[in-house]
């Protein structure tokens, strides 16, 4: 293993942990809005970290570009969908969770 | 180009093509339709005459068209076919004239005459068929073209009659088909041959052949109205009189009987059939039908129904003649094919005239009708006496040969049947004649139509008179060269005496 591999491993594992957290959040949080929050963490940060981990390994700039594009797209989709779902939920009168 | 090869086909086409044209004619084109009909009938008659002359002088007329790779549609003019062809083409002409008069002004005439022509084409085809598959083809075509004629009136009764006709004949057709195919798988040929083509088959096939014979007789027996397959015939009396005449004298029943003649003589061969032991039961069946039909006729008040049961009975004379399996009985049976046709058609024309002119449908209404319609009843009387077997009318000749044949074959019991049936014939015809000639006429007839000074329309009057005269002539001139009897003798000769 060369040094860049260590970085990559760390990033990848961190990403996986964010995914785990996202899943846990999805399972454990009490209502749609809070679950949305958890989900976007997995989307944005989890995938972001994994992409970074792979960028370190990437062999060509094209691959790097693709990886980043993928991340950006997922970010965009995630954000928009989260927005749409939240807005839809509010419009449809789904109540916020109160302790 | 050998024209002789096309004449049998032309005979069939001479009624088929006018028929197809007639279908497309408008209802009101009476003259064109009648012209077509009569022209067709005359052309046919001329062609048949040509063939008669030719065959008599040893010419050969045969049409062959491929139907299946190793089976052909064969139309051939032999003595037996010509006998039947002549009968049907002569009677078609007469019946056409009669029908034109009878149906004047009634609806759906184009349809009627179209199917009428088809029906005759099919009959001629049946007569000329040179092998079993061609026979089957025209036999089924006959079924299909008669059905519309039976239901022509369109009433509920007519529909039921048509239904019953179909049930019987389609079923019969299926049995015949089965027998035919089976035979074909055994022999690989279906060509009608004098003295049959089955002799060469080994013993092991005999049980199968007996079953095939039974299948074919059952299939043909439906149209030949053998008891117990006769149920449709009296019902079919609802059809217009020309149709009844055609059904009874020319086309349908005759096709059935003719088929039996063909099967016994030219498929199995008389001697082979006797060897198989199938002619005995057939004779008994015929005898039963003769007696049963006569007995039933005795108790019918409806004139046409009485005549219908008479037909059932008379047809079986032919079957009987065939089944006795001797040369002289054969002559009697075959000649009766013609004689019964002439007499019965006269009788039906008369019945039609009575119904059409005076509205008489029942025997009990016939008091004194002889004075109102002397010509018609004279024809009727000739027909009736002929049926009874009185000399010198045609029926006598048939019965004479049948009786002689039975004696020759050592089957004396047949004489008893013939005598009994003649007595019964007398028992149901003589009261009619007595009523017609010797009872006082009623004040008014049920439904009278006036035809000026004539007793009825020419077109209605001539056919019965002509056919009755023909019946008389066939009896009196029986020994003339072209008489039915002469042909019947020719046929019997071929069957029994030629190598």
């Amino acid at each position, binding site marked *: 293993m060369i040094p860049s591999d260590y970085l990559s491993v760390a990033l990848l594992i961190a990403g996986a942990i964010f995914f785990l957290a996202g899943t846990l959040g999805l399972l454990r949080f009490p209502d749609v809005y809070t679950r949305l929050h958890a989900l976007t963490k997995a989307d944005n940060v989890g995938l972001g970290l994994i992409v970074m981990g792979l960028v370190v390994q990437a062999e060509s700039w094209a691959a790097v570009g693709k990886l980043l*594009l993928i991340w950006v*797209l997922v970010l*965009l989709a995630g954000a*928009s969908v989260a*927005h*749409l779902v939240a*807005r*839809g939920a509010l*419009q449809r009168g789904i109540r916020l969770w109160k302790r | 180009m050998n024209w002789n090869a096309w004449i049998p086909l032309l005979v069939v086409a001479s009624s088929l093509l006018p028929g197809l044209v007639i279908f497309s004619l408008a209802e009101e084109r009476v003259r064109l339709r009648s012209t077509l009909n009569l022209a067709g009938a005359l052309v046919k008659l001329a062609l048949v005459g040509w063939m008669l002359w030719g065959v008599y002088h040893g010419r050969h007329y045969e049409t062959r068209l491929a139907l299946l790779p190793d089976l052909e549609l064969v139309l051939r003019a032999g003595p037996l076919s010509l006998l039947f062809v002549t009968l049907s083409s002569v009677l078609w002409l007469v019946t056409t004239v009669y029908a034109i008069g009878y149906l004047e002004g009634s609806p759906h005439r184009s349809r009627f005459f179209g199917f009428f022509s088809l029906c005759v084409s099919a009959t001629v085809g049946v007569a000329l068929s040179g092998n079993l598959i061609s026979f089957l083809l025209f036999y089924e075509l006959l079924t299909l073209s008669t059905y519309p004629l039976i239901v022509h009136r369109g009433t509920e009764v007519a529909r039921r009659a048509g239904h019953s006709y179909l049930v019987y004949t389609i079923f019969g057709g299926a049995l015949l088909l089965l027998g035919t195919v089976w035979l074909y798988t055994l022999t690989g040929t279906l060509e009608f041959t004098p003295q049959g083509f089955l002799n060469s088959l080994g013993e092991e096939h005999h049980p199968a052949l007996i079953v095939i014979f039974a299948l074919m007789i059952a299939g043909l027996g439906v149209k030949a109205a053998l008891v117990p397959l006769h149920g449709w015939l009296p019902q079919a009396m609802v059809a217009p009189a020309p149709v009844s005449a055609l059904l009874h004298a020319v086309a349908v029943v005759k096709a059935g009987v003719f088929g039996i003649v063909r099967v016994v003589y030219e498929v199995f061969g008389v001697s082979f059939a006797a060897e198989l032991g199938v002619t005995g039961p057939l004779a008994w069946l015929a005898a039963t039908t003769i007696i049963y039909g006569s007995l039933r006729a005795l108790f019918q008040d409806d004139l046409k129904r009485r005549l219908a049961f008479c037909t059932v009975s008379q047809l079986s004379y032919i079957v009987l003649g065939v089944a006795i399996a001797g040369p002289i009985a054969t002559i009697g049976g075959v000649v009766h094919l013609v004689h019964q046709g002439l007499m019965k058609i006269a009788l039906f024309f008369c019945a039609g005239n009575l119904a059409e002119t005076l509205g008489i449908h029942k025997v009990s209404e016939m008091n004194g009708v002889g004075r109102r319609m002397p010509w018609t009843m004279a024809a009727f009387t000739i027909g009736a006496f002929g049926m009874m077997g009185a000399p010198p009318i045609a029926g006598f000749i048939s019965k004479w040969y049948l009786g002689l044949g039975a004696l020759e074959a050592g089957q004396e019991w047949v004489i008893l049947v013939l005598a009994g049936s003649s007595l019964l014939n007398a028992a149901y015809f003589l009261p009619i004649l007595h009523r017609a000639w010797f009872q006082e006429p009623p004040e008014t007839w049920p439904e009278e139509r006036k035809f000026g000074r004539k007793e009825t329309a020419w077109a209605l009057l001539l056919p019965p008179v002509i056919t009755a005269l023909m019946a008389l002539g066939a009896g009196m001139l029986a020994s003339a060269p072209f008489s039915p009897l002469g042909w019947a003798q020719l046929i019997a000769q071929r069957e029994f005496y030629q190598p």
Partner: protein
Amino acid sequence: MLQWALDALLGLGLLWLAWCALMSPNLLKAIVLFVAFGLLMALAWVRLDAPDIALAEAAIGAGLTGALLLAALARLRFAYADEETVGSPAQEEAKVRFPQWLPAVPLLLVVAGLGYVVLSLPPYATGLSTEVTANLESSGVSNPVTAVLLNFRGYDTLLELVVLLVALLGVWSLDGLALGRETAPGPVLDTLSRFLTPVFILVAAYLLWVGAHAPGGAFQAGSVLGAAGVLLLLAGWRFRAGLTELPLRLVLVAGPGAFVIVALVTMLMEGQLLEYSPEQASILILFLETTATFSIGATLAALFFGGRPQDDKEHT
């Protein structure tokens, strides 16, 4: 070992998802599970070294079919007089006509029989791969799947484009459908679609181009294009009426049409249907793929839209 575990997990996941999707009493849940099933299928294709299919599955199987099903569900609810009847468990149980285990018994036998048959196949078989490799040189492309699709078995592909067209004709001949309720798009969706559409088009072009030598090709590109259309439709975009007439139809038949014309021309020049001369093969294939991409994209979007465009206009 890890490989094995991954495959086993994928396989089991596929079965489990399929079972749940098919047996879920709630229709929406069933569809969502089915979409998830499609995603896993794409992973399975990757594991089976079939990236071309994975691409197609990702675009069509998981993406478009999901959108189609969801839109249909929405319209279904709209069509129902009584919304409560949609997929409520009580209803579902009442509708079972015979004991549910009854068909299961013969089907278990089918599974056992087919399973045995599959296992009885020899572990090594080259199929036609040697022939494909041998002729790849003269096929005009270096991606073997594209070579098979557009050259060796191009005739199948021609007919397959016709299948798409037929489906669209069928959908259009059934008249437009009520759209169901639709909320206003909102600025976010609007922006999203504006931003994503060029990306979609770029990706489609890229896939089309790359298909000659790497996974990708007309179907994948076409589906991506179709997905772009779907997104635009969802965002409330509509074409001008004039464009939905002949121009739209021209685009729809461009793929199969070009294919037929090429088939005819090649037959006249080379003697056999779709026989390309090796020099022209690659350019012909690129031409066919380009037209096919447009057609596939337009057809998929039109299928999602439902009725014939002008019909729909009359309804709203």
